[in-house]
């Protein structure tokens, strides 16, 4: 079991309100990702669930039991820290067995449990080493192993991969996915890397300034971001947000027309992969062409439109400084109202 329920959770530091009332149900066995810009309160919320920060208001329930006042060790949650936080003077085996030792588990049983966890993580040959004798990736595995050994109801991860290099991060990501399938335990995972969020999560909670902007499955968030903040935050390169034209620019008006903007629509979001090059259409200047090998990102200047539009196109079609014609895929358009909220699709055309 590992069901976590947050009801109106708040956190204040002196006068400053950091978490402003979070309601969230994390299902048993779910992989929940908290994502959001730096300083939005993801870590704080995670540490409140862990018991490392006190809860200023609201109720935390783990498996139906009120956990606000429970000691961290009694909540059934294990945490993996960004810095790994391994005990430097203990071997890997001692690190992993420490929680069991504190719980009074006899030595032999401890060794058996540590051994099993080490097998799952492929670190059996490292058990006798000290943390300083391990690479970053190995340390990360040990930190995860230390959490696994406790057989927690919930795993809490605070940006566990951010200290690893890019290649290792990718392989650890798949490893974590595998682990989640194997253990089928609830995991709550904090990151500000949206690729991690999209690939790992069953559901993602997008945080902004102490509240949740949107909660949903990764592809729902990507394809139907509920507001401009989420639209802007999810997706790489960023979504194009095109303002309703107030100038007399013909190109801007033509673009708005092509996007099927209506009177109530304030702004329109369009993912770069849905902006295509065409034989004829809206004229745009290629300010910068980034060639990524399989594709190119074009930064386009359309007369009258604020900022640059991004288009993701098949590699090698354009060079910097060229004039092109663009055509948006109108079926993929996201329409936002004055408050930046997503409008029901099909409401206008």
């Amino acid at each position, binding site marked *: 079991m590992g069901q976590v329920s947050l009801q109106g959770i708040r956190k204040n530091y002196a006068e400053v309100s950091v978490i402003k009332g979070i309601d969230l149900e994390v299902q048993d066995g779910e992989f929940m990702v908290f994502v959001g810009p730096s300083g939005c309160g993801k870590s704080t919320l995670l540490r409140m669930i*862990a*018991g*490392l920060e006190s809860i200023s208001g609201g109720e935390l329930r783990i498996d139906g039991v009120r956990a606000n006042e429970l*000691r*961290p*060790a*009694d909540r059934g*949650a*294990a*945490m993996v*820290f960004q*810095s790994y*936080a*391994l*005990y*430097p*003077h*203990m071997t890997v085996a001692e690190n992993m067995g*420490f*929680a069991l030792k*504190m*719980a009074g588990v006899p030595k032999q049983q401890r060794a058996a449990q540590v051994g099993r966890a080490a097998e799952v993580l492929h670190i059996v040959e490292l058990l006798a080493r000290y943390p300083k004798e391990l690479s970053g990736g190995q340390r990360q595995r040990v930190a995860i192993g*230390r959490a696994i050994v*406790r057989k927690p109801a919930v795993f809490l991860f605070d940006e566990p991969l951010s200290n690893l290099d890019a290649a290792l991060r990718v392989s650890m990501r798949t490893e974590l996915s595998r682990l989640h399938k194997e253990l089928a335990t609830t995991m709550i995972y904090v990151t500000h890397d949206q690729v991690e969020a999209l690939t790992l999560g069953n559901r993602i909670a997008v945080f902004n300034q102490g509240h949740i902007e949107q909660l949903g499955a990764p592809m729902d968030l990507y394809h139907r971001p509920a507001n401009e903040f989420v639209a802007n935050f999810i997706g790489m390169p960023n979504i194009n947000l095109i303002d309703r034209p107030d100038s007399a620019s013909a190109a801007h008006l033509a673009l708005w027309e092509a996007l099927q903007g209506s009177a109530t629509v304030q702004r329109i979001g369009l993912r770069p992969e849905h902006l295509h090059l065409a034989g004829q259409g809206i004229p745009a200047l290629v300010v910068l062409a980034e060639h990524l090998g399989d594709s190119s990102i074009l930064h386009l200047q359309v007369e009258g439109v604020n900022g640059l539009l991004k288009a993701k196109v098949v590699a090698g079609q354009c060079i910097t400084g060229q004039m092109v014609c663009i055509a948006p895929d109108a079926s993929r358009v996201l329409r936002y109202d004055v408050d930046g909220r997503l409008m029901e699709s099909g409401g206008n055309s």
Partner: protein
Amino acid sequence: MRAAKFMAFRLSPELAPYLFLSPFVLLFLVFGVFPLLFSLYLAFQTWEPTSGLAAMQFVGWDNFAFALQDEWFWKSLKNTAWLALASGVPQHLVAIPLACFIHSSFGSLRNGVVGAYFMPYITSTVAIAILFSSLFSTDYGLINVVLSGLSQIPLLGGLMPQHPVDWLNDPDTIKPAIALIVFWRYVGFNVVLYLAALQTIPKDIYEAATMDGASRWQQFWFITLPSLKPMIFFGVTLSVIGGLQLFEEAFILTGGRGGSDQAGMTTAIYLYRMAFDFNDFGAASAMSWLLFIVVALLTWLTNRLFSTKESHS
């Protein structure tokens, strides 16, 4: 023109470092290396300094043989060992928990508290001796006053001395008195050492231990103490070296003679007296080298004690 003249005085880059180093090297040679070698030379000579340098005579290992057969030398070694243990062990047993307490419990007052504990370390030994002479005084000393007050309490009173104690003149009490002063003087220094070490322990290790279910006491035992180990080694080594060379405190409190029945005479005091009271510089030098061997041996032993566990378990 002028600039050119200055240029002429420019030191060559090869020479400059040596010139800048020379003040230290010179002082070190005169006041460090020379006495060291000279004492080694003296240890094999018999010499009455009043009769001039020409009076030196080579005597081989005689001085060492004399030292090893000298009852007072052995007694001074025993005194030194007793004092080193009685003042050194409590220093660390108190300094570690005290440092942890200060580390966790004092916010803005912290530096003031640390400063107060550090004060004795930088106070002149003479001032300390005057202070403690009056504290330990037989008739009016605060310590005896407190003891006599305690002896009035029904149950506890039985354990208290019935008469004022002559702390600094009674051979049975002079050593504890000196040990107390040494302890008091250096405990603050050790607190500062351990506080510095405590600050380097990452906070998240404690958070991980909290998640792992370790109580505060278990965190101290399993996290703090092992993390302090390198500093404990450093501190204990300093205590061993300092304790075995104990001189000032005992010297001043016993009027430079080692106290009645030589009960407060450390080896350092004895070899000082051997040289300057008894005018036997040869024997004094031999003893100082014997003391050095003891210091080196015990330091090596401390080192072994602290390094074995890590590599063998």
